[in-house]
């Protein structure tokens, strides 16, 4: 397994270079270094000298990909792309365009992101699986049909509606929890109730419907009929037989998300005032802060790759027949 993991990690290098190249190209198609300088310096009294000085100071005074003034390898190394990308691979994220240390910001902001994303993720899966198993238990009954109708309805509603509706009802009309905010003063849970509730409810439709499909496939297998014939209770059949056997597709969809929980959620964090990485990324895009955008995409790619590797590893735990070669 170790060889497999090392091989997968090595495969990650060209993927990360490609992602970085793509991010770089897309960013600079929309923004030029001059645009970035103006964005940072303000829009008044900005002289060409000030723009030039900003570019020199921040390392944007070189050509993007190829330096025609340099010879040999330097033609590629004396470029913005090379200089800004190489340090990423050493996990030196440098400073944002406004001068803040990105590593410090990321390490500070990932905790609020996790504080929301982790309970939403765990409770969401638990609720979705329980609901799906219950519906499977009543398969082909009126309850099942109504449940599917409900799931599809829930899926059809925009995520934004859950957020705004949740804030309107729970925080504004009923005044049960703060409408937004985040404080690490021992009462952080007060600020997490609503975003977690919204996240869980918004995910029930698609989650439970997906799991129902997986469980139904298993519910028609011979071993289930055998278990039932042996007198096992429905609860036992669902949790001891169907659930473990449906784990592989569940793990495929779930484990890959675990590392990405650090990255937070753009919408939830923005609406609920959670100072996490999701809103960090959003702010960076708005303020044309390429250093942060590049870093966040890079970290996101790494976490995704780790998620995929963990998924593969989890298969061996869920199904002993799987071998990673």
């Amino acid at each position, binding site marked *: 397994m170790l060889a497999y993991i090392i091989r997968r990690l090595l495969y990650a290098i060209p993927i990360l270079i490609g992602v970085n190249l793509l991010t770089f190209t897309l960013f600079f198609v*929309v*923004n030029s270094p001059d*645009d970035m300088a*103006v964005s940072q*310096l*303000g*829009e*008044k*009294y*900005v*002289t*060409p*000298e*000030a723009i030039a*000085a*900003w570019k020199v*100071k921040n390392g944007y005074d070189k050509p993007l990909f190829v330096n025609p003034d340099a010879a040999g390898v330097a033609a590629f190394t004396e470029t913005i792309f090379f200089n800004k990308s190489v340090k990423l691979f050493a996990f030196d994220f440098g400073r944002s*365009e*406004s*001068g*803040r*240390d990105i590593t*410090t*910001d990321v390490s*500070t902001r990932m905790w609020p992101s996790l504080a929301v994303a982790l309970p939403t993720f765990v409770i969401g899966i638990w609720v979705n699986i329980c609901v799906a198993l*219950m519906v499977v*238990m*009543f398969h082909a009954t009126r*309850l099942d049909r109504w449940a599917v109708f409900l799931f599809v309805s829930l899926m059809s509603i925009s995520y934004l509606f859950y957020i*705004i509706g949740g*804030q*309107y*009802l*729970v*925080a*504004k*009309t*009923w*005044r*049960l*929890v*703060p*409408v*937004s*905010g*985040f*404080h690490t*003063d021992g009462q952080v849970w007060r*600020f997490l109730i609503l975003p977690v509730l919204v996240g869980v409810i918004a995910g029930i439709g698609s989650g439970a419907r997906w799991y129902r499909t997986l469980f139904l496939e298993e519910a028609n297998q011979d071993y289930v009929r055998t278990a039932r014939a042996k007198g096992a209770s*429905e609860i036992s059949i669902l949790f001891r037989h169907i659930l473990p056997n449906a784990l592989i597709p569940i793990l495929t969809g779930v484990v890959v998300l675990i590392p990405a929980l650090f990255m937070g959620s753009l919408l939830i964090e*923005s*609406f*609920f*005032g959670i*100072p996490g990485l999701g*809103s*960090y990324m959003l*702010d960076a895009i*708005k*303020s044309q802060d390429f250093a942060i955008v590049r870093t966040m995409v890079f970290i996101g790619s790494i976490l995704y790759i780790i998620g995929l590797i963990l998924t593969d590893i989890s298969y061996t735990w869920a199904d002993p027949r799987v071998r990673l070669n």
Partner: protein
Amino acid sequence: MRVFFGPRMRTLLLAVLMLPALGCGEPPWNNPNPPSPEGQVVYQSVMSPAPPKHLDPATSYASDESLFLMQIYQPPMGYHFLKRPYELIPLGLEDFPEIRFLDEDGNEVAESDDSLAYTRYTLTVRADEHYQPHPAFAMNEAGEPLYLFDDAAQGRRFSQVPDFPQTGDRPLRANDYAYGIKRLADPQLGSPMLGFMSQYIVGMSAFSEQLAQVPRDGWVNLDEYDMAGLEVEDERILHITIHGRYPQFLYWLAMHFFSPVAPEVDRFYHNPGFAERNLTLNWWPVGTGPFMMVRNDPNSEIVLERNPNYREDYFPSEGAPGDAEAGFLDDAGKRLPLVDRAVFRLEKEVLPLWTKFLQGYYDRSGENHGNTKGVFDQAFIVGPDGVEMSGDVADHGITMSPDVKPAIYYYGFNMRDPLVGGYTEEKRKLRRALQIVFNVEEYLAIFYKGNGITAHNLIPPGLSGHLQGEAGINPYTHEWVNGEAVRRSIDEARKLLAEAGYPNGRDARTGEPLKIFIDVQTQAIGNTQMNWMDRIFGQIGVQVEYRPADWNRTREKLLTGNTQIYSHGWLADYPDPENFLFLLFGPESPLLCKCDGANNSNFEHPEYDELFRKVRVSAPGPERDAMVARMVEIFREEAVWLYAYYPKDIYLNNSWVHNTKRHGISKATLKYIRIDSEEREQRRREWNQPVTWPLYAAGLLLVGLMLPGVTAYRRRQNATARQGEN
């Protein structure tokens, strides 16, 4: 007897019924603010949705950032809080700077003397001005700085300024102002003021070039390098020499760029490893103002606290006419600041902000959030006397603080464009026809609920050069009828269009329809506005094509002159007509200066330019007013802009907030705000009693949903195979 619910179900049911009591504590439960420190009055507000990027007075150039900087720093000059028109007052200085005019040899000459080469400003700093307590000033027993480290490891345990156990302070010195100005010239910092101020302050460019050659490894003491235009006479006196005459320099002295910076502070923040933990002057400003920063988490909140070393400062006892009646002088003579602490929270979305304001958790709304307009608009209705508050908002006792910003938003013609540009009579008539047909009053009423004033002049109200009434109207677009300005008729526009060579909106020579192109900024305009413009130009047969682009692309077009009609705006730096008249100064054309010039219309008019040069260097007075009036006249004659308006800003204040008068230029107004915290507490409790029935209902719903499932499950479990077959 068979028990319907098993023990597990009973526990669950009990838990559901107890939900409302689970750890919710004393109501209100929805209070997002942590408890205030005992006995402190805390002002609760929001920061801009885009958190501050720079809090260094040398590099910051955004009004959202000024909100913090101007509470912490004391530039040499400031503005009177209440008086209008805006009035400069000494802030960090004993008195107004003493101004002397010099010739090339340094001899004093009269202001009107042709040999005048320099102006020298002598600044005398206040004797009672002290810095806030800060670790940069902390000394050990030997009188050496306590927190100077040789390597990053020594200071690793400090991640923010409040982590330092020892602090110190010292009086403000004249050299601190000089040091602050030298920092503007430091190429390492990249101050936006460097290019502009180098034109004025003697020796600034040379100083900057000299510094650029200095190898940088850690702190560079700028005191070791001289700038010709700066002379520190003693601890309290500083001379600043600028080239020629530039009366507006006094206004610049009221901006945060000229804030004092203590060299010790600069040295402190250059400690090894500090920058990696964001321990920089860019994030932890240090000043002599009424407040000091005690928490800076731009991701969440910024907290200012009363500076215990702030000098004796009192609420003004004079104001503008009407201020006493409005209650703005009720606190006259009270010691400032009137609040102990100010918390500015990051609130990205409008709905939570608005909800919290109505719940009483924010003291004011609209103060520093550009996106509030959408929700904010629900609070207003257009009544017979203008904008009024809607019922719900008025019932809360909320008050309004309207203000016309010293700003102008406009659509300008590119005067180099072959179709709409040029200086012939035909071109002027074409532009005037388009001006008349663009009904600004209707546009503002529909899209801004009347929160704007049609601009007849490029100088906003409140500044000299702006005239009210009949004398202030643009006679080419409006007439004075029954005591009010009335837009000229569409027929007149048609006539002008025909005289310009486009009868009924068609080119008289080719018969082609007249089509104009408007470059719009995507974030600043919607489809409804474009549809409205289609309709109004359609009245005279003119077709419109829109070229939407983001700001970066719009800027590119402006720089290259590749535009016909463009949208733009300008917010005053200081309350002087010169700051608006320069928007049409020929050399400011981006095509001429090859820079981000402000004259995006590329307007070139020798008389206007000549007058501007004189206005720029002349002192206020009738002669200057006459020149300004002539420049405004040229602006109207030449019809340089399609339309323009002065935006109105409205803040809403909860009833417990006092001294809410707006200041269009200065942000240093936090020290005047007074909060009635008892009333606030009472209102918050009144407005935020939780509604608990939904919790019980949700619990019962859960049970109700589970019950049939449990029943069906039990029935199924108890069923026999034979029964199933039946």
